């Protein structure tokens, strides 16, 4: 099945002894000149690349105080060394977060610190050679920017920021990653990561309307580019295209239908994901985010809701206002923007949705916290809402729910192994190996809690898991969308057979 060794699932997760250079061969395809140039980067390695790289490093240190601080404050305590899923899965010591940071830090020291300039050997400082550049390209594409290490670092050093900076430096000298940069080009040309043009999108949504009506007897709509709608739904384009993502999209549509909401999607901003974050380019991230602002203004909406997408929610929750604000034209009574899980949860709290939870009785669910949602955002008005609300939604629609081991969920969640721009076939080895800790946790939940399915709220997590879990003896249909579960259980008004009393719904608080 694979031309590399797939790690073995054991009784518990073991931290491996390091193997020097175990993943030194891993390196994703390089972006072609046309894709580089579309984003304003040089098409290929520039002649004076060393100077350009050092200048970029200085530019980033000046712009982001955090980056400068992270380069300076590491004390090599070792707390992060066994925390990265890529280290655990590959045994390569350069996948220890501190070592990954040091790839950049050792060059920073050489050129920008007194000790490094005059006594480089004493402080581990090295010259910026082509070998060093190649090593950056390899190992900064073995980091999914999941930030698990930063939770355990006593100084709070965020390796994701170092990794983003490194990729920005690589782009600035003309060495970009094919997967991310090609996708960003499609967002700017067509509107989404897939390159799904408006007519194809309209055709796909029409097909879904037919499917849902055939299935339920209720004409649930999937509106596109509808001016004057109240809510703009921005969702990852994978929701239109892939499974189990599309079942989540059907769930959102059913929820909007039952709420009687006026909503629309946009063909111009038909992508929630923002790969500008993965490549560390503020300008690119902003350019992508501004499409959402423009769509909201053009359609005249009052609210923006984001679908199930991990890093989209980070960009939306943490950066959208800075990148593309102010959003003073939206209704201030609602969060700007709002997550689809918050939206559904609110309706559940108000007793506006009815469910037949037995529709999901053939499954025992667990929930995979997506790294960007769990560690970089919030939902609702309480700390930890980003962890509690998706679970509350699942529990409102499913009778059987079991969490995975506590040190693998919540803010300690393990990445799926495919985040941060690594979800590409040319990185399959690191993807499979990086999934090891999550797979181990899923096995524990399966063995001890009888878990049959794992739900996620991120397009990357869903695609990554469906692809890699067969390597570990699971099957791809064990991965589900959270709103797919909602979709299965929701009782649509007017559906044939919807006349029995809603006695089994504990959340309903009918007082009419």
């Amino acid at each position, binding site marked *: 099945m694979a031309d590399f060794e797939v790690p073995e699932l054991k009784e518990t997760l073991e931290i491996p002894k390091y193997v020097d250079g175990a993943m030194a061969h891993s390196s994703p395809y390089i972006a072609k000149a046309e894709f580089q140039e579309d984003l304003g980067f040089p098409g290929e390695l520039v002649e004076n690349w060393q100077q350009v790289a050092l200048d970029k490093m200085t530019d980033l240190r000046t712009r982001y105080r955090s980056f400068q601080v992270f380069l300076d404050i590491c004390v090599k305590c070792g707390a992060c060394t066994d925390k990265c899923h890529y280290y655990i899965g590959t045994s390569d010591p350069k996948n220890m977060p501190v070592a990954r940071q040091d790839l950049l830090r050792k060059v920073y020291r050489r050129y920008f610190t007194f000790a490094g300039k005059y006594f480089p050997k004493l402080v581990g400082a090295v010259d910026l050679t082509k070998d060093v550049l190649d090593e950056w390209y390899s190992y900064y594409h073995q980091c999914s920017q999941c930030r698990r290490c930063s939770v355990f670092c006593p100084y709070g050093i965020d390796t994701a920021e170092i990794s983003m900076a490194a990729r920005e430096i690589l782009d600035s000298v003309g060495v970009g990653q094919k997967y991310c940069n090609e*996708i960003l080009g499609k967002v700017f040309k067509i509107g989404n990561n897939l390159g799904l043009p408006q*007519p*194809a999108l309209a055709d796909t949504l029409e*097909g879904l309307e037919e499917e849902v009506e055939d299935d339920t007897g209720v004409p649930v709509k999937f509106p596109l580019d509808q001016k004057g709608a109240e809510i703009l739904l921005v969702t990852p384009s994978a929701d239109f295209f*892939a499974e189990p*993502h*599309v079942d989540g999209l059907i769930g959102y549509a059913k929820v909007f239908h039952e709420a009687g909401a006026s909503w629309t999607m946009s063909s111009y901003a038909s992508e929630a994901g923002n790969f500008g974050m993965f490549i560390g380019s503020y300008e690119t991230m902003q350019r992508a985010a501004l499409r959402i602002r423009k769509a909201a203004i053009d359609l005249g909406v009052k609210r923006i809701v984001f679908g199930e997408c991990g890093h989209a929610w980070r960009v939306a929750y943490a950066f959208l206002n800075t990148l593309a604000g102010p959003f003073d034209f939206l209704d201030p009574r609602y969060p700007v923007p709002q997550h689809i899980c918050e939206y559904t949860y609110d309706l559940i709290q108000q007793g506006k949705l009815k469910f037949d939870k037995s529709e999901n009785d053939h499954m025992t669910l667990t929930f995979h916290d997506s790294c960007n949602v769990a560690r970089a955002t919030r939902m609702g008005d309480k700390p930890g809402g980003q962890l509690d609300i998706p679970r509350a939604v699942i529990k409102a629609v499913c009778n059987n729910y079991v969490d995975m081991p506590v040190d693998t969920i919540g803010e300690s969640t393990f990445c799926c192994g495919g985040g941060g721009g690594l979800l590409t076939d*040319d990185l399959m080895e690191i993807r499979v190996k990086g999934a090891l800790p999550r797979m181990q946790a899923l096995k524990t939940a399966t063995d001890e809690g009888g878990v049959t399915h794992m739900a996620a709220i991120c*397009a*990357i997590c869903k695609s990554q898991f469906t692809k890699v879990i067969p390597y570990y003896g699971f099957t791809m249909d064990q991965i589900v969308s959270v709103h797919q579960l909602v979709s299965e259980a929701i009782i649509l008004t007017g559906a044939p057979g919807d006349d029995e009393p809603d006695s089994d719904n504990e959340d309903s608080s009918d007082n009419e």
Partner: protein
Amino acid sequence: MSIEVNGKTLETDEEGYLANLNDWEPEVANVMAALEDTELNENHWEVINFLREYYEEYQIAPAVRVLTKAIGKKLGKEKGNSKYLYELFPYGPGKQACKYAGLPKPTGCV
């Protein structure tokens, strides 16, 4: 990279997808399948032909539900699902079938 088809050398990208869509002819699919130890039967061809028709109209491969629905109509309802498509194209109907059909690889979070 390249492949040899009917005596012609056709350029491909790193992952074996045709560099120029217009280079495609049915033998391309057979050659690519043979490289992956697959022999194409008429069911494979139903999928490949549908992908090409859809691409011609929409400049993108069909979404999985569009594809399963179309195949269900052509080959019978019991085959209109992704499980069946994965049996035909174990590397993933989206990617493997697109490659044989000469279409670009679907990108993004898929």
